[in-house]
């Protein structure tokens, strides 16, 4: 197998990370930014899990007939990371709902325009 093909999961990780970050930065819609964030976090799941899996590997059972083991620890870690990611996404969506209620829009530039009206102004000199 060529190096590029055997490192396929790493290329996928990098693509997801950069794609997610790009959406996060480039989009002005608060919902779309959250989608970018979720895609970015997905890249971490892949980064951890892919190296933990050996082709032909089994669960780590000490018995006859089980020679190659996959490391179970990365899966457990990522289970935790997925829970954290879900909590973050839920909180983010909840905040966007509140922003929509308070401002009537979910476009960042429109919210910022409304904000500027609220801020205290510099006194005239």
């Amino acid at each position, binding site marked *: 197998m060529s190096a590029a093909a055997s490192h396929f999961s790493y290329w996928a990780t990098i693509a997801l990370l950069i794609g997610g970050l790009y959406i996060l930065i480039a989009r002005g819609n608060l919902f779309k930014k959250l989608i970018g964030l979720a895609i970015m*976090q997905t890249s971490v799941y892949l980064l951890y899990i892919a190296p933990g899996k050996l082709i032909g590997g089994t669960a780590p059972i000490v018995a006859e007939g089980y020679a190659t083991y996959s490391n179970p620890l990365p899966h457990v870690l990522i289970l935790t990371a997925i829970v954290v990611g879900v909590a973050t996404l839920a909180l*983010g969506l909840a*905040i966007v709902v509140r922003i929509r209620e*308070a401002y009537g829009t979910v476009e960042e530039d429109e919210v910022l325009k409304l904000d500027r009206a609220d801020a205290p102004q510099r006194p005239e000199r």
Partner: protein
Amino acid sequence: MREHLPALQVVLPLVAAPLIVLARSPRFAWLAATAASYGALVAAVLLAAEVAAGGTVSYAIGSWPPPWGIEYRVDPLSAFVLVLVALTASLVAPYAERSIGAEIAADRRYLAYAMYCLCLAGLLGMVATGDAFNLFVFLEIASLATYVLIALGPQRRALLAAYQYMLMGTVGATFYVIGVGLLYLMTGTLNLADMAERLHDVQELRPVLAALAFITVGMGLKLALFPLHQWLPNAYACAPSMVSAFLAATATKVSVYVLLRYYYTVFDPWALFERLPTGEVLIALSVAAMLVASLVAVYEPDVKRLFAWSSVAQIGYITLGIGLDNQAGLTAALAHLLNHGIAKGAIFVLLGGVALRAGAGALGVADLAGLAARMPLTALGLAIAGLSLIGVPGTAGFVTKWYLVLGALERGLWWLVAVVVASSLLAAIYVWRVVEAAYLRPAPAGAGRGEAPAPMLAAAMAMAALCVYFGFETSFNVGAAREAADFLTRGLR
């Protein structure tokens, strides 16, 4: 009981949070949050005494021996930061009742206390744990609670501030966990002490360098290292006063601690500072923070934002101390964690009192006119804490700058001394704007008189008094900081 202290101080606020949600009573919530804060302070002080007497304390969670199980590890550095976090929490918690009572709707108050407890548990856990992934989980516990606390701010722009902080904070945490993942792939362990051992044998250095970069940028986002600070001014300015005070004194400081932990106990600091330009990069960014953020603060009309920008500049002093990479610089960085924490804590607590008397809405510098006549003690406290921010001799801030200058001279970087002085002058200008409004301008007609409620004032005056106390009696702030700096650099060169 005593041997369980490292876990107990995290468990106390962690258990208090669900109890508060179940009880649904603001009064009970406040009592539980205060009790948890004081419990954590007692545990932190006992732990610090134990560490000072007998060295590093190691605690195996669930009796699984490290490096297989999760280890809690309290050494001189973490003991110092634990005391800082627990002390701030204990000073802010009694103050919270009146402040939260004024700023948050009655049916949401108990939730604010629950989030405060979770945030405290997360911050203490980040400091106490010796496990890289456990640190990430506590980081997210603290961060998610922080986002909610900021979103509870009295104006609607608090929502956008919380949202922006959530995006940047999550990117930071994700970068951190990518760094940890790369280190785990190279060493096969998550225990920080074990990881440091095994990194010596790692031949392929590129993933380790990538891990260093990811962790530095990730924690740089969380600690508001210039130019990754964009979330901070809005977050601090829009949060409820008690939350601003608590976060300004703890959240970014704990992230600095994590960075130090990786730089000095996981990676090889010699390679980090001699062979890589880590120190130069940190110094360049710190100088930019000290000058640019101070300059922005000079022109900022909103008082809370003014002091939030000042926080970005003050974090520059801390990272400058780390970048200098010598004994005096590290001592300055660690001492400034505490010195800046109490000064900024006092200021946000006092501004909370002013906002309480002035009513809702953002507080401009002009709104402070005649404060010395209306609220003399508040104005005095603001002036004292402001002097400490400038670094006037006799205040805690001066002690930090003294060590920073010593560290810069030791490295032969004369121009840095000029930068520190220039940044202090800028600080003098923005503090003067506040003091001038408070003392020299007449109070607007019809402005009400009267100090903030006594518990709020007591917390702020205690912090302001500490600013002066630590300026003269430096055995705790500098003493403990030097102890921790010794611990970090011991046996390295």
